[in-house]
């Protein structure tokens, strides 16, 4: 197995899908390893994740849901390996930021990526009537 800086783990094809998007956007996904919990019990998830971390040297684990079995496994692993960083609620913006922060220490890069990921969550709503006077309907 090649070395990797981070593992991306979650339900079903969560990791594979995100890394597919990372690859399409940047042309590379080599610092990440995907992992799924599909069909695995809690102990199997923990064993697989520990094996991936050991064999790849990954220092960060990105997961999907706070309650997910991958997150639980990552936190258990972190208890044994306190230098591991666990990021929950991972999104594409966070992974892209982490990818381009190779010169930054992994834990700090994960923290910065989390800020980027959080900032990328935005809600766009229809402008209210008081502010839409210059919009298409207001110009009729």
């Amino acid at each position, binding site marked *: 197995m090649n070395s990797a800086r981070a593992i991306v783990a979650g339900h079903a094809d969560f990791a594979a899908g995100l890394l597919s998007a990372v690859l399409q956007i940047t042309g590379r996904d080599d610092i990440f390893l995907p992992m799924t919990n599909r069909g695995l*019990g809690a*102990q199997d998830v923990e064993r697989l994740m520990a094996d991936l971390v050991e064999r790849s040297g990954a220092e960060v684990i990105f997961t999907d849901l706070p309650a997910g079995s991958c997150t639980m496994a990552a936190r258990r692993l972190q208890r044994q390996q306190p230098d591991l960083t666990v990021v929950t609620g991972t999104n594409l913006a966070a992974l892209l930021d982490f990818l381009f922060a190779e010169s930054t220490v992994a834990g700090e890069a994960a923290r910065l990526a989390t800020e980027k990921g959080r900032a990328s969550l935005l809600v766009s709503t229809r402008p209210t009537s008081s502010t839409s006077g210059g919009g298409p309907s207001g110009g009729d």
Partner: protein
Amino acid sequence: MAIELYRIDDRLIHGQVVVGWGQPLGLAFIVLVDDEVAGSDWEQELYRMGVPPEMHVYFESVDTAAVRLGTYQEDQRPGLLLTADINTMIRLVDATGSIPAVNVGGIHHRAGRSQRLRYVFLTPQEADDLRQLAKRGVLVTAQDVPAARPLSLDELLAGEGNR
């Protein structure tokens, strides 16, 4: 009855429970019955971190759950009771006699188990334990998520959910 679902799931608190069932049932609390977790502050903290702040998690051993089950059942809020294995649920059924139905939600592969459904693997002893549970008058069904059709015990044991 406030406890909407009595579930056997070896992952205990995880995405299917908190979100998959938690959202449609409007779960306000989870009763996690596990002797090991009930004796470990660290394990309890781990599981608490997995649920949203408005959802309460109560940790019980089989013995303490047997004493408090009636209180949980009378709670006006919707709740879910979880065990990690069949044996724990049987002990609770025997101790209380007030569990009407059990949902088999996830028992995954390990040595000695054979696959019955995509998400249920059983040893011969575990299969017999489920039959014994049904003989006690408990309705045993298998259903991983609310959108799936609940499968009868016969369907579960025959592996008919795989077709």
